[in-house]
């Protein structure tokens, strides 16, 4: 399936290669570079590139291109999903997935890649198993390693692969047994010029951090499970219980994982927490324009809107911006043409406003279109859909765990057209 993998940074440097079958020359990447050049933006590189003898399937993540070489028919999503899994594993291991980190930990990276694929077919992708095979680096361990000269390869052989619960290793022990769940909801919305909702839906995930000894069997139930329109689960969740009883029953992996993601569709009414009054105009003469944006609370369910950020992708002709913000700071990057207004907390008494003039490239025709605004925000202790966790029950172990649920609402792809 997957023949080889090349990691290429944004500048076009190939800094890691791994082959699972015979070696394929790195010159195959020339086709990729060609496509990369044509695409201008890294986002626009076609995920699948056809070359005379191979197919290149690539993803772009954290400013790194993961380019895999395929020789025969394979579902493209299979490869794409796997490449993302690799990136996630790196993130899980090293805290981030960047070029420097990969270079610094090149041996561990190589060992991971070796374990994750065998002959191009995925072998072990569960983080729990991998961590038993190859221990993630920690400061303490790297110090110990330098002193004792040992490395990160697991001393003991893993058992996880052999158990029926591949995502959890046996013999987990904690002194404090705790289970925390974060219900994170993101609002995807498109608002039109007048502020009416063109389209809105909620994408939610439940992230879990479960640190419990032994083999706890958890059951999470909701007050209003019917709300969820479409769900997808971590493999540990029993589909059947969900389908029959609408409860989430699972033996959790150890540590952090995403328990489920859900979708509340546009059919339901989605509360839009803020409104935006904006007026961006460009003058026909004088190569200038005016900008006036006000943000105010709409349906916030009585909570405070925090971390409010407005991002505007300006037309290319906008050279600079001379604005005045009543709250927060703004920054206009003339290279990327992005205006970023970081507001912070939204005060309903005194609405934040950004006002001022834009100067355009002289002589250039006035831009046809007005840029759309992207809103970013955060509301603590609120799931905007109204989803509520009812209770968490544990079976199979004797102790009493700490339990906690946190709700956060964020803006996802929240766009205001102008």
């Amino acid at each position, binding site marked *: 399936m997957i023949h080889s993998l090349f990691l290429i940074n944004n500048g076009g440097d190939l800094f890691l290669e791994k082959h699972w079958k015979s070696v394929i020359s*790195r010159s195959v990447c020339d086709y990729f570079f060609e496509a990369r050049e044509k695409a201008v933006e890294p986002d626009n590189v076609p995920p699948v590139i056809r070359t005379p003898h191979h197919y290149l399937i690539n993803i772009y993540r954290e400013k790194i291109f993961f380019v895999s070489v395929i020789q025969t*028919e394979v579902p493209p999503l299979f490869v*794409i999903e*796997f490449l993302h899994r690799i990136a996630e594993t790196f993130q899980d291991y090293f805290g981030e997935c960047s070029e420097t980190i990969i270079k610094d930990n090149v041996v561990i990276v190589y060992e991971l890649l070796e374990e994750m694929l065998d002959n191009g077919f995925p072998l072990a992708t569960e983080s729990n198993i991998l961590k038993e095979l190859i221990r993630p680096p920690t400061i303490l361990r790297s110090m110990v390693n330098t002193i004792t000269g*040992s490395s990160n390869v697991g001393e003991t052989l893993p058992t996880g*692969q052999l158990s029926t619960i591949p995502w959890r290793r046996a013999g987990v022990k904690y002194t404090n047994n705790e289970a925390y769940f974060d219900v994170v909801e993101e609002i995807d919305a498109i608002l039109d010029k007048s502020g009416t909702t063109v389209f809105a839906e909620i994408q939610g995930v439940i992230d879990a951090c479960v640190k419990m000894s032994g*083999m706890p069997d958890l059951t999470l139930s909701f007050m209003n499970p019917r709300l969820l329109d479409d769900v997808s689960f971590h493999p540990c969740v029993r589909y059947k219980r969900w389908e029959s009883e609408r409860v989430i029953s699972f033996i959790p992996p150890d540590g952090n994982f995403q328990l489920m993601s859900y979708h509340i569709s546009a059919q339901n009414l989605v509360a839009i927490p803020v409104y935006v009054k904006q007026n961006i105009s460009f003058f026909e003469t004088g190569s200038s324009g005016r900008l006036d944006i006000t943000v105010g609370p709409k349906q916030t369910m009585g909570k405070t809107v925090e971390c409010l950020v407005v991002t505007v992708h300006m037309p290319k002709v906008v050279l600079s911006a001379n604005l005045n913000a009543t709250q927060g700071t703004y920054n206009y990057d003339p290279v990327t043409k992005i205006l970023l207004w970081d507001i912070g907390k939204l005060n309903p008494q005194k609405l934040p406003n950004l006002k001022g003039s834009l100067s355009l490239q002289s002589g250039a025709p006035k831009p046809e279109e007005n840029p759309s605004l992207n809103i970013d925000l955060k509301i603590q202790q609120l799931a905007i859909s109204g989803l509520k966790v009812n209770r968490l029950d544990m079976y199979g172990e004797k102790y009493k765990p700490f339990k906690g649920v946190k709700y956060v609402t964020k803006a996802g792809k929240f766009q205001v057209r102008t």
Partner: protein
Amino acid sequence: MSASSAFSDEKGGSSGEPEYGHDPASGGIFSSDYKRHDDLKEMLDSNKDSLKLEAMKRIVAMIARGKNASDLFPAVVKNVACKNIEVKKLVYVYLVRYAEEQQDLALLSISTFQRGLKDPNQLIRASALRVLSSIRVTIIVPIMMLAIKEAASDMSPYVRKTAAHAIPKLHSLDPEQKDQLIEVIEKLLADKTTLVAGSVVMAFEEVCPDRIDLIHKNYRKLCNLLIDVEEWGQVVIINMLTRYARTQFLNPNVNESLLEESGERAFYASDDDEEDEDKKAEEAALPKRKPYVMDPDHRLLLRNTKPLLQSRNAAVVMAVAQLYFHLAPKAEVGVIAKALVRLMRSHSEVQYVVLQNVATMSIKRRGMFEPYLKSFYIRSTDPTQIKILKLEVLTNLANETNISTILREFQTYIKSMDKDFVAASIQAIGRCATNIGEVRDTCLNGLVQLLSNRDELVVAESVVVIKKLLQMQPEQHSDIIKHMAKLIDNIQVPMARASILWLIGEYCEHVPKISPDVLRKMAKSFTNEEDIVKLQIINLAAKLYLTNSKQTKLLTQYVLNLAKYDQNYDIRDRARFIRQLIVPTDKSGALSKYAKKLFLALKPAPVLESPFKDRDHFQLGSLSHLLNAKAGGYQELPDWPESAPDPSVRNVEIPDWSKCTSRKDRKEKKVEKPFYSDSDGESGPTESADSESDSGSRSESASASDESASGSESEESGEETESEEEDEEEEKKKKKRPDKTKAKKPVEESAESEQSSGAEDRKRGRKVVKNQKSASESESESESSESEEEESEEESGEESESDTDIRKKKTPVSKQPPKQSKKESKKETQEMSLLDLDDFEPTTATAPVTPVNFMSSSLVSDLEGLSLTDSILAPTTIAPSGSIKMYELLHRIKGEGLAVEYCFSRQPFSPDPNMVAVQIQFTNNTNSETKNLHIEEPKLQSGMRVREFSEIEVLAAGDSVTVVMGIDFCDSTQAANFQLCTHTRKFFVTIQPPVGELMTPAFLTENDFKKEQGKLMGMNEISEKLSLGEKCVNEHIIVERVTATANLSRVPCGSDKECRFAGKTVSSGCLVLVTVATKEGVGAQLTVNCEKMVIGTMLVKDILQALSQ
């Protein structure tokens, strides 16, 4: 030469890149090459593991950077036998990378692996095989072959998985081994562990994808295992099964697609009479077609893949989606839309692939995605390639009802900054306009407005699209043509200029005044135009010459002359050709007469189609589909067969995998019950019903046991055998069972995993060898319980009569417990399997498995020895004592001759002291025997539990039989609902206990009573005044009434005006104290003290009623 090239490689490789390992060796890059790795070699040769490790780390870092480290091979390969596991691992990494280049040296390492293959540790065996098979050295093919064969029958599934992985490796190394490898694949396909399934199917797909016959026997197993296979394996299996299903089953949409076809034909029929006849023949044939019935195996596949739509892995979701698209009946395909739309939130690469597939699907099944229209709306932040795909989908989804919304969206898109996207949007508008007649004018107007756009690209694109639209109805739009003629001065984009020229030429009759002028202008600029424009100028000239030769004759001549000397041969050719055609000379042939007809013939309007049309002949989700070209190794999706191949090939005779499957079956069934049963009307047959309850499976074991055991032991062995064979039979049986069995729900969330695994064990029905120890244990326990029983009976007095009867009637029930205890002993060793938890067995899973029997097995055989063969079941011997009230469970008429009554025997239910014993009497009033009486699918309130009676195999006509079952009502009067099944029918029945039956007598002294009563004051005390009924004349009658109402015992009391009773609730053991104090005349006071107030209140009510009668 090789050395020098290696050197330059080195240099080239390293000079461009920054160094990132601390690699002192490479620091000396300009020192002579052969010395380069000397220090590394030294380190590798040293005795210290830490040095070796350091060296290996550096070497691996070099490999990762793509540098050549092959000259270190001899030094590295020595360390293959190193004890240090870390060094070893890195050496393996090195070996796999370079063995191919240094074949001879690589052979040195082989013996180490061969030794590793024999290691007692399965992980070492597996890793040895993995590395051995990864070394691409042809000489060791026979060794690899041997190793794979051995590993394929290894005990450890992990090693077998590795063997499956090794198969494609060996195959690519030496394709001649194919036949032998297929044998191994065949063997591994029969493997029943989820670990192996994905890998072996992968090997199958790479080595012998055409050997579909290997799948037959494993088809059902694969379907059932699917949900537990790891995600990557799922993708491969689903894709393979899609192809398999296409060869083995009939097209579920066969009737519809025929209708469609004939409908389409009717449209064109007028063109061709022959075809018309064809059509008639077809239509005549149509009614003859048999109604389509879906193969149960086909249904099995659809049903088992559906839950995977909820997977977190996009590839799995896509695989299921394509399976449904290619295999499911039209009405069911819709379920995949939601899941696919969900994937749109994922990474942009995932979106890209999903949108491509959605685009293809949306052409064929537009309705499916219509509800999700808005999910395809475009954001300005989407990458261009995603925008364009979304646009494609939106265009495909457009119809009369939603077109206005879509056009409004398109309007915003046209204003985007992304010009490629704007161009695509304009084309999309054009396509909507051609497809939907109602909006054509609106679209045209909108596009015309765009002609005044400042951006040239936008204008050019609009021109092209307008041209296409105008071709449909040119007469009404001469204004637009005039407007466009004016544009020719400004627009520079060749394609747009060419389009305008073509339009003017084509419709020159509508704009007679302008067209010659345009030609004049173009003639002037002819030499500077692009080729495509030049060709259109010639065209325009020719057309004008034919219609308006007076004005344009000279111009045309001029243009043709220019073209004659053009650099492009196409243009010269065209000019020559047109001159001959239009300018009449004496040499010109007959053709020139028809020149006008040739040029100005009515041209059919172009059809604007999606580029995704007909892409679905590729399997969706495949690379080939994405590229719209066949990729190497692509397996065509076969067409449906005309008639289904023999479905019996999938039957498996020797159900050696029965354990797995039956487990899965059960699980599956559980899940689907509430969810699928309504939608899957025709799915009945495969439904693997009711193996759930023990009694269910017992029905089959009964027949099995008939063969295996005989004589007096038969009952018992029938119990114990619960043989493995049963599953197979069971499955066949299930098929016959009616659909409604599905209405079951999983119960009991409180089940603990341990217990369920115990239950699991029991369900699997292992052939259990009699365990002497536990049997004797249970014996003694049962004896003790017996003696208790006797005591209680003496005390309560009244029932002593029926004592012996009751004991006898217990006999049939006593079969179960001995087995139970054996299970218990096995339980600990049972591996805990997470997913097993799903099939909680409602009865036993939650019951604390106490190995208490109320009759030892020896006693059973003793009783049987008394030759009470059938008469033991005779109604006379088991009639409950008169004081016990019988309730009807199933009326004779409703039960089609089977009458069922029950009573609360007030005996402790020994297998579980927290359960209320319910005695059930079956009477067969029909003329035929009823078989396999058992209970199924209890529907219980949470916390309630049921212990079923063991199955009654045969109930002869006219006979009756009594059994005892236990129910834990949780001290509530909630009813227990369950199904009573015979071999032919199922009846929904309900047992609701009167509150008085929820308790057992408790024996207290007067002092104890008072003490306890003192504790249960206040809220827990309920007293009520009453007037005694006429017959309640003396104490004796009061006692009788109270004990008849509630299962309490009398407490001795000094006063003769008071009667005291005590009991405990069965489930939680709460005390229930009742006092009846008589006063003068008929007055009396009733006091009930009980912690459970609900019970107390209900009891008061009941006793009041009993006493006041």
